[in-house]
């Protein structure tokens, strides 16, 4: 229902500390918030190359988690419409300019027999570092 809004147009940026990689802001394609234990995956494909989940972290309202922590996190939530920060590490620094950013979100929604979530991809310009 909100697939087209998953990848935020703004906020795509390199790491401030110079580590290779960056941050993309993402929203959950769902009409309510969910405890993080039900966020099964937020998969990133950057310029056609999948970024492994263990090279990403997930931040909601200032709290940062590894994806191995999410399944056990029942006391924090990704709120409806909230911009979360998906931070990722790459081998090489990101080139300035445009990048293809594809994000697929998989949610465990109890009343649905199949996984919920959605996918979005946008061409984003890296904000000046």
């Amino acid at each position, binding site marked *: *229902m909100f697939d*087209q809004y998953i990848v935020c147009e703004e906020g795509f940026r390199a790491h401030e500390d110079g580590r290779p990689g960056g941050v993309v802001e993402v929203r959950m394609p769902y009409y309510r*918030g*969910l405890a993080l*234990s*039900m966020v099964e995956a937020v998969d990133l494909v950057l310029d056609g190359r999948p970024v492994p989940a263990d090279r990403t972290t997930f931040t909601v309202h200032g709290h940062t988690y590894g994806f191995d922590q999410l399944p056990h996190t*029942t006391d924090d939530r990704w709120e409806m*419409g909230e911009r979360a920060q998906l931070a990722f590490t790459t081998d090489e620094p990101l080139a300035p300019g445009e990048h293809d950013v594809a994000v697929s979100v998989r949610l465990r929604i109890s009343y649905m027999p199949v996984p919920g979530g959605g996918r979005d991809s946008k061409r984003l310009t890296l904000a000046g570092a």
Partner: protein
Amino acid sequence: MTTPAHRIQRGVSLYSYQEEFFLRTMTLEDCVRAAAECGALGIEIIPEQSIPGYPQLTEEFLQTWHGWMAQYGTHPAATDLFLDTKRHPGRWLTLEEQVASVRQDVDIAVRLGAPVVRAIINTPPEVMEAAAPYAEEAGVRLLLEVHAPFHYEHPWVLQHLEVMYRTGSPALGLMPDMGTYVRRFPRVVSDRALRDGAKPELVDLIVSTYDDHGDTHALMDVVNYRGGGPVEFGLARQATHYIWSEPKAMLEHMGLIGHVQAKFYEMTDEGVEYSIPYDEIVPVLIEGGFAGHLSSEYEGNRHVQDAFPVDSVEQVRRQHAMFARLLGETTGEDA
């Protein structure tokens, strides 16, 4: 036109403004104000949608919330609970955990001042039964949302009705979602499929099969035999999710019906819902003596957002102009 006396109240579920709330172009207060401005004074809220930090509610939030109710002349009509049976990976919530989850949402309803809690359709009947005394003590009714494709003869709903009639608990009841009365296929949905590249002749096939209330059993197969792909399959799947039956079926259970979710997909320029015949539904509610809220649930945004500006406020406004007419309210325009 004379309309029989009735006690139906108008309301809005803030679900209706999901597009604007998601995109932060409307605040929660904006949503309450928008409802009030169309005379829909009963506010239905989904705490998990509208209240960051759920299930914690701060005193500050509650004060603001009740302040808005006073300021805009609105009142809390209902809250919507979810039951996250799959909260933990790899295991199901126990019965006790499920009941605890419902109790927590009853507490939240009490604090928000809502007399009704929507129990989502996946709530098991034994959870309803176990939570009923707690809800009764709290002065809150726990109403099972009868959502498409369910209906009053469906085994799942029959199990719930068995609990309701056997226990006779005043806290238990039903909350029909009018998405169970989709007489014709919503055109916003088929138009979207066309924009997504669906073959027009297959869209016609799907829509006309639905509109004839024909056998959708093998619709996916036939769409495949006719050369359909993923977009057409998605539309065919939609056609098996909508249902139509006679709204009069509500009369038999009217004593249990405490709230109605007025699902809608498109209020046309002519002021009618394209696919759901509210001009037949509202008279049934009046005839049955329904005394709860008729509460808007706009769900068209997802089908038009790719190509058109979404205006949920206007859509809800139109629905309430229609309700005011069907309920025989004297409007300024008539005077």
